[in-house]
Every structure is written in C-alpha cells, then in structure tokens.
C-alpha cells in the first residue's frame, strides 16, 4: 500500500462470457520497471486500455499515487501524471516533430486557451519541448514532418511527448515493436535511464529486453496474472515456462 505509484486492484472486465481481465492485481513502485508479459490474446491491450482510461472495467480500481482514478477520463488521467505511449505510434502526422512535442508541453501546462501569441515565440513551451527532444536524441529532426520519420524515430518521438508531461508513471505498450536490433539496444538503454524520472509499466514481447530491464515481471495469461516476481523468479517458475516461456519467441 505504501510507495506504490500505480496500483491496480482486482480489475475485472468481461466481454460477454469471456473474462479479459480476471481479478488483476498489480503495483508499480517508484524507480522500478514493472514488465507485463504474456501470450497473444492474454488481455494485455485491454489491461493497458483500462489503466489509461479508454476502457472502463466492470469491477476493480486503479490508483495513481493513492488517488482513485478508476472513474476518470483519459485526458484527466494524463493531467494527473499518466504518460502513455502507444504500440502503433499515435502522433499528429502532418505536423513536425517539434510541434508534436509542443503539443505535449501545452498539455502539461494546460495552456491550450491561448489564441493570440504565436507558439514560436513562447519560450516556456519551446524549452520544455526542446529538452524532451534532446533527452530522446531527436533535436536535429525538430522541423521534420512526422510522416517522413522512420518507425524508430516515431517511437522516440512518442517517448519525448510522454516526457513533456512530467508523468508520475509511464505506461508503455510494446515500445520495442518494429525496432531493429540497433534501435532495440538504444531504446533499452534509454528506458533504463528513464526509470529514474518515473517508474514504467511496460508491456513487451521482446524477452531479451524484458529480462534486461525489468525489476519485476507479471505474467498475464487468459486475463489472469499467474505470477509476479523478479526476473529470476519468473524464469524459474514452472507454470510460466509451461504457459509462455516454454515456446520462447526469438528476440526480434
């Protein structure tokens, strides 16, 4: 109960007779990376959706720094400090890298109702944005249109935008997806340093990255968490091996 930045308590959701989240209990503590792994169809996306606010659970609660956010809308949760990145990059494609990041800065400052002074002359927004871009290494691409970015660069931009929000916790849905081995290495190193800014709830398929990064791992199978523990514990857990790790996917 103490020290948990993000807490998921007895989350249940069913689509008809199919339980997609079955009494899920989770915690993300300060400074940690808590990874969620599990086979396809286990319900990871639905879980993320409920934590982020796009889906509402049937029963159960979600707490952010002790505050019950279960009934709150997505935008409100973001304001309270939930920084989310998407598996399929969700960015304003026609805008530039900088503009997307400034969007995040505007969101952080809740300052969208300015109608007169140009964004380009707004030092506060510019600073937040450029700092975030520098942190992910995209400063050189600030004026590039997002549609022309490579897949890996878009992932970096997603993280940059999440950074501008000064989140209390990161919610990351398969950040390694689609990255080559170089990109994965860079992202892994980056996430490792990122945990100091805010803890990360990480959904991932790339087992090498998960074992390298995670402080704790929870294994989700058919909507149920069958095990939670350190990397070693999970590796040795026979249920987990049977359900998931036994059919080891090669690192992509």
């Amino acid at each position, binding site marked *: 109960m103490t020290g948990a930045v993000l807490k998921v308590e007895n989350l249940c959701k069913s689509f008809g007779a199919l339980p997609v989240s079955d009494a899920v209990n989770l915690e993300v503590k300060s400074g940690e990376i808590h990874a969620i792994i599990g086979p396809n169809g286990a319900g990871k996306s639905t879980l993320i959706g409920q934590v982020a606010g796009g889906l509402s659970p049937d029963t159960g609660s979600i707490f952010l720094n002790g505050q019950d956010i279960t009934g709150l809308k997505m935008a409100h949760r973001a304001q309270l400090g939930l920084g989310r990145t998407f598996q399929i990059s*969700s960015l304003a494609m026609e805008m530039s890298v900088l*503009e997307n990041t400034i969007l995040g800065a505007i969101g952080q400052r*809740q300052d*969208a109702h*300015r*109608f007169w002074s140009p*964004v380009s002359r707004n030092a506060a927004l510019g600073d937040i944005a450029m700092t975030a871009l520098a942190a992910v290494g995209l400063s050189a691409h600030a004026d590039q249109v997002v549609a022309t970015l490579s897949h890996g660069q878009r992932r970096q931009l997603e993280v940059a935008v999440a950074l*501008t929000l000064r989140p209390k916790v990161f919610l990351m849905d398969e950040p390694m997806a689609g990255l080559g081995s170089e990109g994965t290495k860079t992202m892994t190193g980056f996430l490792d340093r990122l945990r100091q800014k805010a803890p990360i709830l990480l959904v991932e398929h790339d087992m090498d990255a998960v074992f390298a990064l995670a402080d704790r791992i929870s294994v989700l199978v058919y909507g149920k968490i069958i095990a939670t523990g350190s990397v070693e514990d999970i590796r040795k857990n026979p249920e987990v091996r049977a359900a998931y790790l036994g059919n080891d996917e090669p690192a992509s």
Partner: protein
Amino acid sequence: MRERHLNILVLALLAAVPLCAYVSDEPFTITLSTKVAILALAGVGLNFALGLGGLVSLGHAMFFGIGGYAMGILASHAQSYTPIYDGLFVFEGTKSMLVIWLVAVLAGATAALVIGALSLRTTGVYFIMITLAFGQMFYYFTISWPAYGGEDGLSIYVRNGFPGLNTLDPIQFFALCYGILLIVLYFFWRLERAPFGLVLKASRQNPLRVTTVGLGVYRIQLIAFVMSGAVTALAGALFADLNRFVSPSMFSWQTSGEIMIFVILGGIARLCGPVIGAAVFILLEQILGDLSQFWHIYLGVLLLVVVLFAKGGLTGLITRRGAS
C-alpha cells in the same frame, strides 16, 4: 509562388478591382467585389471549424442566416418604428451597423454554442448529418414563422448606418466589408499560430493523441465551432445589408454547400483560400451564368475535379509551382 505572396496578391486585387471600378464609375463591379468580400468572410468563418478543426459542418448556413435575420429583425423594427419587445422594458430595433453586428455575432456564437455542444458529442458521419439537419430546421422554422416575411423574406429599405460613412455609397460599403475581412483574417492568422491553433489542428489529425497529452478535444472543438458560427453570422448580417433583403434561403442547404465550395475551391485551411474561392465562384456565376442558365453543372464538374484530383484547391495548385 509562396503562399504569403499569393495572399498579399489576392487581397491587393480584391481592393484594386473595386477602386478601379470606382474611378471608372462602375458601381456594379464594386457591388460584386463587396459580395466577394462578404462571402469570403463566411468562408473564413467556416474555415475555423472545417479547415482548422476538421469539423465537417454541413449546416453552416444556419449561422449565415442567423446573422442575416439579426439584421433583418433589428432593422425592420427600426424602420417601422415598432419596438421588438414592449413589456418590462422596451427593446427597440436599430439601424446602427455596429449594434447589429454585435447582436449578430452574439446570436451566432450562442447558436453555435448550443448546437455545437449537442453535435460535437458525436463524430464522423453523425456530425455531418446532424449539422445538416439543424440547418434545415432553421430553414423550415423561418419559412413558417410569419412575423418576418416567412417564405417571401423581408426587405430593408435603407442600408443601415455606420458613423462617419455614407453606407449607401458602394465604395464606402465595400471598404467597410473589406476592413472587416482583413481584421478577421488577421485574427485567423494569429489563431493558427497560437497554442490553440496547434491543438485544434492536432485534434483534426489525431484526437487520441490530444487526449493523451491531457487536453479535452470536445472543449477545443466547441470553442472553434463557436468562433466559426460568430464570424459566419457577421458575414450573414453584412450580406443582408448588401442586398437589403433577408430570406429563409440564407438558411438553405444550397447556401451551406456554396459556402463549403468557396472554402474547397480556394484551398481548405488556407488563410486566403475562401477569398480565392469566393472570387472564383462569383466570376463563374457572372461569366458562365451569362452563357447558360444551367451553369451549376459546370460548377459541379469543377468541384468534382477539384475533390478528386486537386485537393489543395487553387492555393495548392499555385503554391506548388514555386519553391516552398
């Protein structure tokens, strides 16, 4: 050609043509130019919602009509010396443009607030159909409300007054409308570059992204819709003043379509797109209209070609030639 140069050229032409017509004593051309300026203003209004916000408001003529009838009601009571309301307090009509514009803008904004608040709870096709339906509602209501002419409309015998100007003089009235257009264009230009403009544009491209950074898309879109309604209503009041006539057709779906055509022809979301579009539309109406009474067919074909093959409208075509 760079877009900025195109914009200056277009606005300069819009001023130059009536000035030349003034010198050569052709009041009809001045009136046409005034019509272009006013219709462009309606298009700029739509552009706030449609161009920047991606809100396909197919009933925007309702705001045009509201502005027109604001003028019609106020002026008709003034010219017949009967008060609009004579109870606890007396609410008289007026023929002062400044007051009329204020009322028109407030009425347009209020209507947009109510209708937007309701319609923006939906998205996509629902929104399109709902705005179209509400436009139609105003149309039918105005036809069946007998007090202000019903289907026949309402005539205002003398143009309303503006301090210091003879508004019946075509060039002076043009200058007034042109001035308003410039002011609104300037506001549009600033809005687009301000944080609100950025968020609004992002809401069109990716509403989920905007939500994820903690901003409410609904409120942003509603504010844009209200601004849009207010500006289009102002254009409606000016249009009614130009023609000294107001009728339910200002509310019709055809009018909604035409306003959208100006915006698309000129280039959606472009600053002076509506100006170009309105000018082209009026030119076509004059030139083709003389050739054939069925000139709407050519307009339809042109629109089809633009939509299928030239999405950026005329602005897109012209600016693509130069280096950007």
